């Protein structure tokens, strides 16, 4: 592979200054914070665990972006809304089940039912989205499906607003996941453990599905080359629908895990996690399943740890208000300096 020539023009200089400046700010901030001793080791530990829990939710959503991007080369902008619908469904299912008392009498089965309905509804929405909004536009110029995706995202968002109201609804707390666990020196709440465990389980299941099953192999083939795959007798349309369905299932699961952490649902809740999960997918290398998982975790940890570690050293008031700025800055930096992400394939560079 030939060496890439690095040209010294003002764009490069600007980018280096920008990147170097941001990294310098981060490093100096971290040193300042640490030297001032603002947080104890336990505080950092709890930031880290909260970050892993949040990051595993991001990872589940990111998988949906990555799978679709790997096959269709399009950003399914409405994926955050699929997640939001999953969260709403989980909320209603949980409320209904706790009203009839099943949440108390048989909590494990009730939670599984909630999980199942949420995943199914999200799957149906993802598949409908593909059928109605994206399939007619296959092969159109690249911006066209992206704009459709934005439109679909708005439509789903405001449909939820109309259907379920514009207020924030609080999730019924069940006694199921209360309490804390101690794993050696680390303590984490049961909720966080459940979220991390469930996300891990789903990611492993997805990995095995893609690597070991016939459909998974077909998905990889379609991602590699649609036309050749079609010639090999693979039904490309069906594989695309399957991909959307899997993305939807994972987003639905992410929805219920997310409300375990935050305890509330709202029609706008899909927007930021959606963008952040996309960032995670890009960070890990879009199109790459393991990359999405790594990217999600990295972003979650950065978001929880970042504002306190990097910014509070400067004495910035309420640094947590700026946590989304950190997430977006990461996205910008990654796209500028390593557009293929941590695990991205080289040939795309």
């Amino acid at each position, binding site marked *: 592979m030939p060496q890439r020539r690095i040209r010294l023009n003002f764009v490069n200089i600007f980018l280096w200054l920008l990147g170097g400046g941001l990294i310098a700010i981060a490093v100096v901030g971290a040193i300042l914070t640490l030297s001032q001793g603002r947080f104890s080791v336990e505080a950092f530990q709890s930031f880290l665990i909260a970050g892993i829990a949040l990051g595993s939710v991001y990872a589940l959503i990111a998988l949906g972006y990555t799978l679709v991007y790997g096959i269709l080369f399009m950003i399914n902008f409405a994926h955050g809304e699929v997640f939001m619908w999953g969260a709403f469904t989980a909320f209603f299912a949980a409320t209904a089940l706790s009203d009839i008392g099943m949440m108390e009498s048989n909590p494990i089965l009730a939670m599984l039912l909630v999980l199942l309905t949420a995943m199914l509804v999200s799957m149906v929405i993802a598949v409908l989205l593909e059928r109605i909004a994206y399939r007619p536009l296959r092969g159109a110029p690249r911006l066209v499906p992206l704009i459709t995706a934005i439109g679909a995202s708005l439509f789903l968002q405001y449909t939820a607003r109309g259907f379920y109201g514009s207020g924030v609804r609080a999730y019924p707390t069940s006694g199921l996941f209360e309490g804390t666990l101690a794993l050696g020196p680390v303590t984490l709440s049961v909720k966080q453990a459940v979220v991390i465990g469930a996300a891990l389980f789903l990611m492993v299941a997805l990995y095995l599905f893609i690597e070991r099953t016939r459909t998974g192999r077909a998905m990889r083939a379609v991602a590699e080359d649609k036309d050749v795959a079609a010639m090999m007798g693979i039904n490309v349309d069906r594989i695309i629908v399957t991909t959307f369905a899997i993305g939807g299932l994972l987003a639905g699961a992410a929805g219920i895990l997310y409300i375990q952490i935050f305890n509330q649902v709202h029609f706008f809740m899909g927007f930021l996690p959606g963008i952040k999960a996309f960032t995670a997918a890009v960070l890990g290398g879009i199109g790459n399943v393991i990359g999405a998982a790594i990217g999600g975790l990295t972003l979650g940890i950065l978001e929880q740890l970042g504002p306190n570690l990097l910014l509070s050293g400067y004495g910035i008031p309420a640094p947590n208000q*700026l946590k989304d700025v950190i997430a977006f800055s990461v996205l910008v930096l990654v796209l500028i300096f390593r*557009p293929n992400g941590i695990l991205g394939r080289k040939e795309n560079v």
Partner: protein
Amino acid sequence: MDAVVRRGLVIGLLAGVANVHVSLVGLLISLQTRQLVAGIVTLGSALPLLIALLAGYLAGRYRSAHGEPAPGGRILLAGALAGLVSGGIAALLVVFITQVNVSWIFVNASARLVSGLHFDQDMLVGSVILVVASTLAGLLGAALHVLPRHIARALSIGLIVTLVFALMEPFLGAILRNLGMGAVDRFLFSGGGLTQVGAVIVLAASVAITWAWRTRGAAVTSRRLEAMKPDQRRTAKLVAYAAIAVLLLLLPQIVGQRLSEVLTVVGIYVLLGLGLNIVVGFAGLLDLGYVAFYAVGAYTTAVLTSPSSPLFSPELSFWAALPFVIIAAALIGLMVGTPVLRLRGDYLAIVTLGFGEIARIIFLSEWAKPVVGGAQGILSIPAPLPFERDPQSIYYPILIFCVIAALGAVSLANSRVGRAWNAMREDESVAEATGVSTVKYKLLAFGLGAAFGCLSGALFAAKIGTIFPNSFDILVSINALALIILGGMGNIFGVVLGAAVLVGLPELLREFSEYRLLIYGAVLVVMMILRPEGLLPSRTRRAELHEREDEEEQFDDEAGVDTARPLVST
């Protein structure tokens, strides 16, 4: 079951789903407050019928595999079936929400929805009316294909015009009252819609005019236009432009206070759309963080002119602050433009979206509060004119900036710069190879886009007098994007039309305003699928977007190859 009937059933089913959607989303209830024809029908109650009418029309548009229409009887049957199914599903919805308590899930599944769907009648009578009226509406829709063409056209245009007149009551009524024709207003309009007599008059008049135009007017006009000499044609054009200019100048006086307010909002969005049009429509860079420019313009103006900025308030006048706004625009354009120079397509969209959010979060944060006021925003920004802040006078600076921007955009589009943008949009690598400096032209596009956006923001701040960070969320970007897409990318008139429809109409029809984003979403999807070049497309854009279809017809197999092209290049 033959194909025609099956099509009718499928479309009826979809229309039924649409009925359920508009019902549960609350649109139907909210439109209940709006009279269409006084005392007879409200817009909310007419909604299922309009859906059935459309369903019947679509069902009747059947073509066989050989491109032949179905026999008339079957078309009518299909239309009636479509209407029947659509109305039937709505009736089932009513039964469902009265029998099962779902109001804890669907906030709109209420008694008001039931009475709206049932035309305020009781259960049995109401559902019978609903189903029968839907069937008739479907039948009417299908009949438009069966009737002789000129009758069908006169009828459909008549119906549309009547509907538009009824909907535009706030607008038309205000104009009539302003021109001292209150009597006409009272005769035609009442309570937000047409009077019964008015409805009949408008329907009859529009049918008659369409009829007469078809037989006489259209032919005469086009013959006269063709007979003109070139210089005569130019004069005619000039006269038309002059008439438009006079109209634009007099508009606030004609329409009065409240509508002038709407006009100023539309004007600000026209400016925003013109700027975004340079970035997206001309240069092909999908910027979803356009609001960042708008916010920077507004905040620069606010901080420089208002006395209430906590740390820094030189209290300049609007016009003295303007040069600083332009400088800020250039800076922010470079700040946003440079990092994204190497990104293509959708990556660029997401990164710019990120920039937009960063801007809002920073304006909202405690950290920047000493300068920009945090969540409390900045108050008491002076108006751009020495006298009081009223929409009728603030309209003029906005108009001036819009006209300058439009002229600038037109001349840019037809210049060397515009051609370079065209080349870049069509194929970046080829443009680069033929000597177009993509770095330069991308930055230029961002810089100009930023200038327009910042100006628009400055005018917004001066118009409204108080700004808060939450006025600058992603929805502003989406709004601007939706309006240039509806109007037609790359076309100035398209931008104006888009702003008038997407920004002006919801301001006029308050009942819709809560649902405007829902409607924008639907508009974006539908436009992209049916007419991606917009309502008033520029010629190049249209050709570009349909190029693929032509290619596909010629080389069926090769069409997909292009989609696999890598998106990011370094």
